[in-house]
């Protein structure tokens, strides 16, 4: 179907190979999706969607499979990570591209990107031995908490946000900056009013990727959040996320319990899908990012 008669034999061969590879990549993804839904969907329908999503009690031994507390846990932790990661990441990239001397940018950017290569268990370890005790002693609560998880995740997503934001900011033509400065704008005015709007889509993309990473992160989160399956009421409470729930219990779960973990996976899957259909989020982040920034200028 894709191989045309007027192609040379070599072209035909290469076309076949390329399409085979492309289709197998897509079909593997498709198979995984089907597998998760086949395994997880029956339980959801058995206990009912509202009962699964809105029920706060997760007690596999008592056949209670409500994941509301985990959904809330994921939302809290992700929101916290974004609150920490976005301002840090975006301002860091603005500094590196607009203010820092070239040499500093050249040194720092690879180092920040290197942070992405550190295994998440190392972040978790630092969180357990340093951050959690600090929070316990100075702020109260058990230490292993929403706050600890948010801080660790906020740092973990920095390389994603900084790396892509820097590339986008660098791609903004210099003529925009010159045009603004030549009109008598200050450096910050030129950045805030011209460069950032020009780089908006790329920065939002970096944030969305970072957010995807935050939602999916498991190991570090398990280590620093305490993992109790309760709806958190403050940032000092321990929580369990959707990913932690799957990772913690998959090893020994059987029957309905195992199916419930696949069902959790479906919810996680839907979360990720929502994030990546980002038209809504673009508008949302516009207000999250730009309205607060406006206060700096006034």
């Amino acid at each position: 179907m894709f191989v045309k008669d007027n192609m040379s034999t070599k072209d035909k061969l290469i076309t076949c190979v390329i399409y085979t590879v492309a289709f197998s990549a897509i079909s593997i993804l498709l198979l995984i999706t089907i597998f998760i839904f086949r395994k997880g969907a029956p339980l959801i329908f058995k206990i009912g969607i509202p009962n699964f999503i809105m029920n706060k009690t997760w007690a596999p031994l008592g056949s209670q499979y409500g994941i509301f507390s985990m959904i809330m846990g994921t939302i809290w932790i992700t929101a916290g990570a974004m609150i920490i990661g976005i301002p840090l990441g975006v301002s860091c990239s603005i500094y590196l591209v607009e203010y820092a001397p070239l040499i500093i940018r050249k040194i720092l950017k690879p180092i920040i990107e290197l942070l992405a290569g550190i295994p998440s268990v190392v972040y978790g370890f630092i969180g357990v031995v340093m951050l959690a005790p600090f929070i316990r002693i100075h702020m109260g609560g058990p230490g292993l908490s929403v706050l600890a998880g948010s801080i660790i995740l906020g740092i973990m997503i920095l390389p994603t946000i900084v790396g892509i934001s820097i590339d986008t900011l660098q791609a903004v033509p210099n003529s925009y900056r010159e045009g603004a400065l030549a009109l008598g704008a200050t450096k910050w005015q030129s950045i805030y009013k011209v460069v950032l709007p020009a780089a908006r889509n790329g920065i939002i993309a970096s944030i969305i990727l970072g957010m995807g990473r935050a939602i999916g992160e498991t190991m570090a989160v398990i280590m620093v959040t305490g993992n109790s399956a309760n709806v958190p009421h403050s940032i000092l409470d321990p929580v369990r996320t959707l990913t932690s729930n799957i990772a913690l219990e998959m090893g020994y779960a059987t029957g309905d319990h195992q199916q419930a973990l696949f069902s959790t996976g479906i919810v996680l899957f839907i979360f990720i899908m929502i994030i990546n259909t980002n038209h809504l989020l673009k508008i949302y982040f516009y207000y999250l990012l730009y309205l607060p920034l406006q206060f700096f200028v006034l």
Partner: protein
Amino acid sequence: MADRLYVKNLNFCYGSFHALKNINVGFKDKTITALIGPSGCGKSTLLRCLNRMNDLIEGIKITGNIFLDEQDVLSKKTDLISLRKRVGMVFQRPNPFPLTIYENVSFGLEVHGVNNKAQIEHIVEKSLKDAWLWDDLKDKLSHPALSIPLDQQQRLCIARLLAVEPEVILMDEPCSSLDPISTMKIEELMFELKKKYSIVIVTHNMQQAARISQYSGFLLMGEMIEFDETSTIFTNPKNQKTQDYITGRFG
């Protein structure tokens, strides 16, 4: 008539490269002055000294004086923001901001602290009218500026400059990316603007310099070879090099 902008013994180096050598030149009010010369002779460099845009480049050295009225532009104490408000610049390639047409024109006003909405609206309209864009764009004010044709973009860049009411307008080959008809429109516009502003234009186009300017300066290898009334430069130059250049023997 006194010079609005006066350059005295200006020397300029990019690192070790001596780009401008002892330039002396004055630009009069309500006059178009053209800077001509072959590629790389330092026309843009001279122009960018006048509003200190060269400050953005690292490793430059600059000596001499540039007076705007009585004030030395090159002095450390010069407030770049008010300088650039008074001495505006139009670039070679149209560079409207990736914002709406309206925001492009209101940009300068907001930057310089005009907050009154009605006033901004009024000035935006007036500036677009002065740049002959109002009829074309009045229904498209909220459209992205990058969506309009190139010559309108260039006039939009002029409009956003007019909004901050500069005294001197610097233009670095403003027509080099435009077709002849758009070029003609910009030239006519410059003629109109000349009534209020002092304009300095860099151009590669000899006919353009002859058509629109009252004074011309010929630069070669960083030196101001000759500066005189345009008619003199083009009909009766004193320097052989000028003669050679305008008759197209090199450059």
